[in-house]
């Protein structure tokens, strides 16, 4: 009690973080929580990456050399779960925590205690998931899509898989609620919705998507749980259920999930490209409408993941047309970014380089996505390496390069020091080259007939697999350089960053000192009516 009173008496202005582990365990400061999310995501990125390297090492040559097929399947399943729920999503939540209050002029997130919970659930969830590797029957091996009846054959790990997915979902939902409440209630006066920066916009849309679909995933996995343990037959044909229904429910979650992982990256590059082109974002409002229509359409295209399950023709036609339609707003975004660069005065610092790489390579992923929408062709592509190539193109140079770009862009604001630009550029070139060496040959493999999720393959697939494996190892090693650059920057070994950091960037985050003080915008900033935020 007395401590609390003493605290209340301390001067509010300069009260910094408490020292030691309490600062992190009881963290309610959005910057601390943002940092924890980002560090956690980096750790998970390396765990998932290690699994990817086990996969690629096994696939380096035909024949089984290192692992057994069942362990191989555990690796593919865990790699996906960790990368999706452990690396990409928390990274974006971390960026949201750090940047949204700074970008809208709020002192913190709206619900700081819930924020603490939603972070600390994650290490628990992933410890549970990771521990399944040591259980009898091994980790889940039925694919991250958890299709029944196969997933019901999982060993002791099964309930732990379901429970950890529940926790991940819970964490995402709480994070999403926090983002929505913060954006809706805590904007600086005069910052109207349409004045909000694109990163805030895309996150607002993402948060609504999360809120809408994570509970659906939770419902689906709960049904799996009761099917296994409590005698229900939601997905068992013998009891009047239908295994295909799980796929419908899963992809009702799964397709919006794809956009949950990419929309914030859209937001990031929409911040970075204008800064380094020294021009305002082209078509800010149409970008908002495009992102919203992508989000809306994402709810009515789920069955394009299931064109081979045997759907009536009308269903196939509907989902094909709806899917093709998504190409339109996505195209608008790409064209608008191009128009932003057009007649600008560009410089090519690391964040810009990663954004440009995003632009080119995400577009390639978009093209293969369009090809996959065409049902007759999809029947050939489905569950082949072509699909693996497609979604890695949108997730690695898409989502992950988006995160990398954001970290390079805002890190000087976080630490008050620049990172090592030369090393940053080297990291960029290595990543971009290796990502293509890894994933481009997979297009060929898929078209030539190699199914995904196989531990061994026919000899005619050997050459491209070797190239892909070599690329993957190169990509993995390049990321160690990233860790080195970040540590260097956090240790303040680079040049001191000015308040603006870059050349006249737009946005409120550049009006606070570098490094951003522990508490910012305790009184809301003035947003002059004419200020161009976008």
């Amino acid at each position, binding site marked *: 009690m007395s401590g609390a009173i003493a605290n209340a008496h301390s001067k509010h202005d300069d009260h910094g973080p408490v020292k030691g582990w309490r600062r992190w365990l009881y963290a309610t400061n959005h910057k601390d929580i943002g940092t924890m999310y980002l560090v956690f995501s980096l750790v998970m990125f390396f765990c998932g990456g290690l699994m990817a390297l086990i996969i690629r090492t096994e696939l380096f040559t035909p024949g089984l050399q290192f692992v057994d097929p069942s362990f191989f399947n555990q690796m593919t399943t865990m790699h996906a779960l960790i990368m999706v729920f452990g690396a990409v999503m928390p990274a974006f939540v971390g960026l949201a925590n750090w940047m949204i209050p700074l970008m809208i002029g709020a002192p913190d997130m709206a619900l700081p205690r819930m924020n603490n919970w939603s972070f600390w659930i994650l290490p628990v969830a992933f410890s549970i998931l990771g521990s399944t590797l040591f259980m009898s029957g091994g980790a889940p*091996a039925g694919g991250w899509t958890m299709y029944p009846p196969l997933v019901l054959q999982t060993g002791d790990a099964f309930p732990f898989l379901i429970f950890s997915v529940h926790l991940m979902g819970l964490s995402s939902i709480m994070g999403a609620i926090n983002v929505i409440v913060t954006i809706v209630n805590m904007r600086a006066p005069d910052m109207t919705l349409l004045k909000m920066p694109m990163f805030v916009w895309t996150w607002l849309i993402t948060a609504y998507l999360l809120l809408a679909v994570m509970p659906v995933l939770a419902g689906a996995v709960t049904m799996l749980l009761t099917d296994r343990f409590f005698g229900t037959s939601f997905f068992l044909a013998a009891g009047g259920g239908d*295994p295909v229904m799980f796929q419908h429910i899963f992809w009702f979650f799964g397709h919006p999930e794809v956009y949950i992982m990419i929309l914030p990256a859209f937001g990031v590059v929409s911040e970075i490209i204008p800064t380094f082109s020294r021009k305002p974002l082209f078509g800010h409002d149409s970008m908002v409408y495009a992102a919203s229509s992508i989000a809306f359409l994402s709810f009515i295209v789920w069955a394009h993941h299931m064109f081979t399950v045997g759907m009536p*023709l009308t269903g196939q036609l509907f989902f*094909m047309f709806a899917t093709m339609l998504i190409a339109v707003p996505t195209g608008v975004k790409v064209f608008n970014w191009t128009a932003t660069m057009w007649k600008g005065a560009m410089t090519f610092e690391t964040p810009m380089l990663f954004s440009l790489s995003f632009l080119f390579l995400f577009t390639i992923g978009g093209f293969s996505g369009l090809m996959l929408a*065409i049902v007759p062709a999809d029947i*050939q592509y489905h569950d082949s390496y072509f699909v693996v190539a497609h979604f890695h193109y949108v997730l690695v140079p898409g989502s992950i390069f988006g995160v990398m770009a954001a970290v390079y862009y805002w890190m000087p604001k976080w630490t008050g020091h620049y990172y090592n630009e030369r090393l940053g550029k080297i990291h960029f070139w290595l990543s971009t*080259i290796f990502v293509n060496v890894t994933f481009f040959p997979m297009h060929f493999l898929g078209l030539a007939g190699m*199914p995904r*999720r196989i531990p*061994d393959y026919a000899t005619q697939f050997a050459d491209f697999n070797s190239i892909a494996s070599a690329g993957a190892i190169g990509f993995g090693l390049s990321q160690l350089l990233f860790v080195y650059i970040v540590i260097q920057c956090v240790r303040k070994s680079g040049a001191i960053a000015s308040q603006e950091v870059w050349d006249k960037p737009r946005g409120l985050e550049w009006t606070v000192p570098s490094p951003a003080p522990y508490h910012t915008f305790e009184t809301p900033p003035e947003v002059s009516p004419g200020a161009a935020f976008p």
Partner: protein
Amino acid sequence: MIRKLCTSVLALLIAGDAFADWAVNMPKGVTRLSAETYEIHMVVFWWCVAIAVVVFGAMIWSLINHRKSKGAVPSQFSHSMIAEVIWTTIPVIILLIMAVPSAELMIKLEDTRDPDLTVVITGYQWKWHYAYQGEDVSFYSTLARPSMAARRRNSGIDPSTVENYLLDVDNRLVVPKGAKVRVLLTSNDVIHSWWVPELAMKKDAIPGFMNETWFRAEVSGVYRGQCAELCGMDHGYMPVVVEVVEREAFEVWLENEKGGATPVATASGELK
């Protein structure tokens, strides 16, 4: 650098023909519909290439010419209604152009009427069972022994010395050339997917459900594929091999097979 990479990839594509092993594209296949599928795949691919040339061209032009180091002065335009309308409508038109032939082909793919022959295919962990409907012919089809021996971890057998490594079976599905073969698919346990790229045919085998599709192979030969839906430990080891033979040869083969049927129910052999 990206361009450099693209050119090297392109060079690879062109050089690809020199090596039989370096298959980089979808097979044209041996059915009329597989050829049409290939056609649509290529049409959409070239549309993508065309769009890529325009979009990437604009980006690269801008990257080269609108850089600060060249003394570019940033203009400050930030919207244009006309541009937005143009790059919304043009994609819609292109998409419609792609959608129409796709829809036509889909209708043909679904037309399972008037088959000459019906085969019931049942997926098992991890093999296939084929039953010729109305004939007393049915059998399992499992990974061939040479592959089986070589696939073991550190088996000491070099896969390249095994003919059709992982793509060979003990009993092939034999069908007559030119006949419309209706395929009914179901599964004994988990979901599998029956895929033969040369026939442009992939369909899931789902327990408790009967899926239907068809093909008509126009060229004799042996066509190989694999299970495409993750179905557990040995998912990578349940290949599909279809042998297309002349009608007379098929009749002879069918007569020989009769009587040796393995009905699904007495699968294990231990049952009787």
